[in-house]
């Protein structure tokens, strides 16, 4: 493939995937409000359109028309840059998500339904998410407000602490799959759900299950979701790092949070749940397009995110830190050892 072809194909994929992601983000918000409502014996949004389905669009218009306020105390440059950094890193992370197997449109072989299939895909993801911290931190710092700064400090130390566990939790999968490339990791889980890395056939079920548990817990922390939503604990910090933000700048933080949720759910699907592969090696199931399997798995994880939000209370800050450093991190290290021994014994 020459450079022009790569550019053209990437542009086509971005043009198709990006609006879909934006739509999914908007309707994630709707789904979350609707499900939370029903979890709490309420109806959730129901006024705008049937089942409140037009609510995200109404919210979007509202946010767009609101006044954009920059506080006097704020550092103007960084105050504007922070939401941009946050949303850019969220969008950049989407570039490596493998949504589906190779596609051919109008005779053009576009490769996987994935914008960039890097051979260090997972490292790229960790690099990009580690840059996301800057958006949140600078938002809090540049607001010139104590609540914002406290929220930012909490958020970055939390993301920083749990990033270690997140990185170590996927090492077991990398050892077994032998590659950083996400499409390669999916290919290594072929022929039935018992080959998915969550069930880790080579070394008994344990390392895979522990790895998945560690990944999910740190993913909740990375995305600042309940029970790890201390950075925006409204009872103590108003709204944390985005207290001073309004209008589209606030919307950018909001969208970035949901995009990050989609990213971590997609990566969980890719690493542990077989990505776009069918759960059973039956011809009937394998005829279903890979995108549908992938979306279905991601959807289940996203609903789980919302379910947890409706169920669990928030951690206290010291609990969060000791849980991360004294329980999750040693467990992750021990898990790698178990997996390594298992891999050697299995040959």
């Amino acid at each position, binding site marked *: 493939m020459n*450079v022009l072809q790569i550019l053209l194909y990437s542009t086509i994929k971005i043009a198709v995937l990006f609006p879909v992601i934006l739509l999914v983000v908007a309707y994630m918000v709707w789904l979350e409000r609707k499900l939370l409502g029903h979890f709490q014996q309420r109806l959730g949004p129901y006024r705008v359109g049937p089942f409140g389905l037009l609510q995200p669009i109404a919210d979007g218009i509202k946010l767009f028309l609101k006044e954009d306020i920059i506080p006097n105390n704020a*550092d103007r440059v*960084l105050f504007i840059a922070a939401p941009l950094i946050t949303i850019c890193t969220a969008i950049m992370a989407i570039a490596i998500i493998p949504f589906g197997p190779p596609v051919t449109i109008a005779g053009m072989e576009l490769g996987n339904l994935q914008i960039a299939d*890097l*051979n*260090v895909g997972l*490292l*790229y993801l*960790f*690099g*990009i998410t*580690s*840059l996301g*911290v*800057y958006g949140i*931190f*600078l938002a809090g*710092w540049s607001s010139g407000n104590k609540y914002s*700064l406290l929220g*930012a*400090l909490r958020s*970055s*130390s939390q993301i*920083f602490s749990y*990033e270690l566990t997140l*990185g170590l939790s996927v090492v077991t999968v990398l050892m077994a799959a032998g590659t*950083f490339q996400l499409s390669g990791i999916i290919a290594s889980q072929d022929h039935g759900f018992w080959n998915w890395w969550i069930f880790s056939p080579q070394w008994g079920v344990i390392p895979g299950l522990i790895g998945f548990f560690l990944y999910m817990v740190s993913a909740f922390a990375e995305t600042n979701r309940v029970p790890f939503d201390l950075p925006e604990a409204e009872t103590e910090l108003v709204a944390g790092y985005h207290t001073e933000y309004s209008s589209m700048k606030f919307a950018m933080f909001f969208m970035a949070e949901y995009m990050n949720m989609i990213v971590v759910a997609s990566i969980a699907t890719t690493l542990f749940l077989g990505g776009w592969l069918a759960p059973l090696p039956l011809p009937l199931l394998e005829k279903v397009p890979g995108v549908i399997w992938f979306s279905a798995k991601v959807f289940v994880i996203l609903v789980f995110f919302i379910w947890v939000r409706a169920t669990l209370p928030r951690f206290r800050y010291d609990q969060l830190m000791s849980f991360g450093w004294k329980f999750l991190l040693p467990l992750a290290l021990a898990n790698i050892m178990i997996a390594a021994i298992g891999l050697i014994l299995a040959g």
Partner: protein
Amino acid sequence: MIGDLLFIVFAALTFFFGLGVIVARNPMYSALSLVAVLISMAGLFLLLHAEFLAWILVIVYTGAVMVLMIFVISLLNLQKEEPIQFTAIRKWGVAMIGLFGILFSIYVFQDPLVSYLRPQALPVPPEWGAVEMLAVDLFTRYLLPFELASVLLTAAVIGAVVIARKDASAKE
């Protein structure tokens, strides 16, 4: 062609943000310029097909080291740095030393004895910089230095814990 263009872009970014690190009055902007320098350097590494090194640079330096640095800056509540007033002699002295340094390095690069310092295009195997190759090298040819470095780091971590603990017991 596109590689050359990207090299110029990343090199220019590295240079200008590097300048920003020392020129910026606000320490926060200095630190953020350093972050930008590291990211542009990762870009340069990518152009050399050293993907692993590039992303490790981003993860370790921008994702961890610089976050801690920015933490410290924000907690110290530093204000804008006042420019230091230099006397004329000092100003000219510094300028002369700088000029001498530049001339000296030009001279050194011209000298045939140190020609190996000059940048030159080396033939690179296609899989160079890939994770597998790096891992094989690290765990075979460079095993001893690698293990020594990890022992050193462990010692540093334990040292940090000990120092932090002493402080806590002294307060009690």
